[in-house]
């Protein structure tokens, strides 16, 4: 399945674009997708907090992903 991932904050800087499409096996859990992204973009490993949203809800690591899920990677930002 193809997954569309929206990127925010420093994650957008690391990947170099605001959106990313990746191919993953149907039902792949969130943590495996993250691992795949960290392999493709090693600088993502340095982010200690990175919230993953699936369909605008906070996703736990084990949550399985489906085609057409809207995924977003949201690191905290600190500017004021």
């Amino acid at each position: 399945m193809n997954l569309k991932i929206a990127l925010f904050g420093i994650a957008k800087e690391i990947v170099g674009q605001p959106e990313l499409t990746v191919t993953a096996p149907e039902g792949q859990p969130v943590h495996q997708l993250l691992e795949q992204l960290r392999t493709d973009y090693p600088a993502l490993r340095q982010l200690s907090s990175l919230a993953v949203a699936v369909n605008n809800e906070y996703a736990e690591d084990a949550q399985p992903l489906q085609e057409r899920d809207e995924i977003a990677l949201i690191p905290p930002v600190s500017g004021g």
Partner: protein
Amino acid sequence: MLTTEERQRYRRHLQLPEIGEAGQLRLKNARVLVVGAGGLGCPVLQYLAAAGVGTLGIVDADKVDMSNLQRQILYGPADVGQPKAATAAHALRQLNPLVHTEVYNCRLMLGNVRELVAQYDVVVDGSDNFPTRYLLNDACVSLGRPLVSGAIYKFEGQVSVFNYQGGPTYRCLFPQPPAASEAPNCEATGVLGVLPGLVGTAQATETLKVLLGIGEVLVGRLWMLDALSFQSRVLKFPRRPEQAAINLDTANPADYADLCGVGISTVSAVELRELLQSGHPPFLLDVREPDEFAATHLPGATLLPLATLEKGVASIPKHHPVIVYCHSGRRSTQAIDLLQNTYGFTNLQNLEGGILAWQDTAEKVA
């Protein structure tokens, strides 16, 4: 009771059944602490003052810089070099003489956060660094205060209300405090001037809703705005009991190490002046940005901006005293933290209060 003047001034609030005289009185009797009088703090303070929030506490240790004026709209060129907290309070008195301001010209630290937060009903986070954000969250959990949080990065903003009526906290959303290098601040990256206006007015909105007890407060939801695409989304997130339980007493002090000064040796501006005149002057390391360095720096200092510090580690002496400095002492603390913990430096000292403190002593000497 509202006075005749207040009834006139707040008439458009009194007309709303959701607010009315009872609501306006709640605002009048409310005490709100705004941490950071910068990009976010300015619009938050302006709207809360205009709305008639009775007492506004303002915490900021920084001074107005010319580069702040592009977004920090309480200040003008005549204020450059003046302390932000007092300058903001002065501007708010012009805007609405009916509200009281309480000025704290200091950094929020482990040593003062409890006393400050305890005096207020609601806390607004407009700070510009992660250690302060975690410290403030933990203090609000310890003292049971709602935290109206806003944060910005370049063209993006995030807003949520933490620790309100049993809702999740900042740590439920972002459990692990990021290293300073993970999110450079506005000084290092730049920021769209109007962005903190959009985000700060959202914080002011939520603060008024909390004070009035109306509507659906942004609890367990993170509002995210990308000004470039003008898309916003709301991310729902749950309370995680383990994270929500973390407070000032149970947190790992390393989460805000540079706010309690653990393991970092400091030197005052006065002491540094003496050291520079001694026969063995220290190596001076400036970790600000090149444009700040070009504007002014300490004599003989070497520039290695914090964001690219690691590339220049080899040029920092390991066996000769090194004084690290920046604008206010915060980036230099982060630099020392990195150099000590990752590269094993043991010869570093932080210039307390940064180049601001240095300039203060220059004024005194002159």
